[in-house]
């Protein structure tokens, strides 16, 4: 997690882990994505351990969302490796998978919640149907199992069961995010990606969604990567933080340290601008 901070009075590098001997859940290294001459993600690397929440902060255009799309296997990078600590693809760079395998890995092992519910949901289908569809794609065919598992996922996302047949289109923003969350966790993913999941919600609704995420993380130990420009959200959820600027990680560390004793000039600006 130690990003280089060139040109600064440097803190000494940290040692490799010695007390924790768990296998990482996610290892990303040298990830680079260019669009023509523009480098959206520049040599990004990080490691996440099972149950950890990694926050990604930075201004618009810093490459946060591109990073998330790469982690969701929606795009191919020019360089970099990405492995998940799961048996079926241990040690395999997920970017080398063929189209079919890549899609199946995404469905089975990775869940995502977008800021915009339209990206993640069929707005005219029922809420329960949206979740069941995810299970169908993964091969579940029994009607009863579909219904039971969809309900369980919606329940874990604290979605009110009496609205299970209501299409997301007519739900509030907070409820739409709960449907997205249910869909994302229905298959018990090894990695949950969250792209500004509470941006645009009322503050009180935001608190409830955050609480749900916190509970999920605690009860199920899902490894999460959450992108947000809201440092309050990051402070509440993330164990560790990556600070991105112009596609690169300029600082990484424990959340309370990065937000309370930021080292990089950019992080200092970011923290002071938001407090």
């Amino acid at each position, binding site marked *: 997690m130690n990003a280089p901070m060139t040109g600064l009075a440097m803190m000494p590098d940290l040692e490799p882990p010695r007390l924790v001997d768990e296998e990482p859940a996610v290892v990303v290294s040298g990830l680079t994505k260019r669009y023509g001459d523009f480098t959206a993600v520049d040599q990004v690397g990080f490691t996440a351990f099972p149950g950890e929440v990694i926050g990604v902060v930075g201004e618009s255009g810093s490459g946060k969302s591109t990073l998330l799309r790469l982690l969701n296997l929606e795009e191919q990078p020019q360089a970099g490796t990405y492995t998940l600590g799961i048996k079926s693809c241990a040690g395999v760079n997920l970017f080398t998978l063929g189209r079919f395998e890549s899609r199946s890995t995404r469905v089975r092992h990775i869940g995502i919640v977008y800021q915009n519910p339209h990206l993640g949901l069929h707005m005219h289908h029922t809420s329960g149907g949206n979740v069941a569809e995810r299970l169908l794609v993964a091969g579940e065919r029994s009607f009863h199992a579909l219904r039971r598992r969809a309900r369980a996922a919606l329940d874990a996302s604290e979605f009110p069961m009496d609205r299970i047949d209501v299409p997301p289109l007519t739900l509030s923003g907070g409820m739409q995010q709960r449907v997205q969350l249910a869909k994302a966790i229905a298959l018990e993913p090894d990695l949950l990606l969250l792209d500004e999941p509470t941006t645009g919600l009322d503050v009180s609704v935001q608190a409830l969604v955050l609480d749900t995420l*916190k509970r999920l993380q605690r009860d199920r130990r899902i490894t999460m990567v959450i992108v947000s420009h809201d440092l309050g959200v990051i402070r509440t959820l993330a164990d560790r933080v990556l600070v991105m600027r112009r596609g690169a990680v300029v600082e990484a560390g424990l959340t309370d340290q990065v937000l309370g004793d930021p080292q990089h000039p950019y992080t200092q600006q970011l923290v002071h601008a938001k407090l």
Partner: protein
Amino acid sequence: MTPLGTDPAASPLLSVRDLAKRFEIHHLGRQVATFQAVDFDLDAGEFLMLGGANGTGKSTLLRTLYRSCRTDTGTAIYRSARGPIDLLRAADIDIAWLRRAEIGFVTQFLQARPRISAEDIVAEPLLQSGQDHKTAIGEARRWLDAFGLKPTLWPAYPSAFSGGEQQKVNLARALIRPRRLLFLDEPTASLDRLARRALVARLEELKRAGVAMIGVFHFPEDIQHLVDQQIILDADTPLADPVSQGDMADVAE
């Protein structure tokens, strides 16, 4: 693994040498020094009191050892149940593990999250370490009771509580899990006498159980009888030379 705080080989539990902390404030182009050349050894069951005027860096010292702050100067060798490690250089993931398993930090402020009840906030650390909900809530209530929070407030949201009541919730949460090393940052500030007494009783208990503590106290007379060592930090905090112009250029954008 040995039980908490009982390993005879773990002496001293914490060895700090030449510890210093400077804050580099990029937009001012200068460094602000706090404490420097701090040395001490702390054994299991020992209590170290940090003294000194406001602004001498007492809280910063605690935060540096807890790794909420980084420093480039000194060493702090902590003898974890899993082996010795320098707290100033340990991997973030190791520090996160130590915070869950061995090292606690008690502040004077509750970070109340909206719409989470007092008893749930207190129970959370136990839930995180895998206890079932019923046991955790039972234990949480026992703690809230010990600190004198009225049972009618247990299921209420602390964001509406007074400062003193919030602090009782905060202390219960911070002390509910067993620790080998505790940092105490003015935990008695804003507490009434009854709650202060309950806290001191709990600290006595912890000390007897072998928990090492480093504390900053607003009312030192409350805990004077627990103190084994004292370090007074210097009042004057010299400003270091401005950093080079090269760093300034980076800030200017």
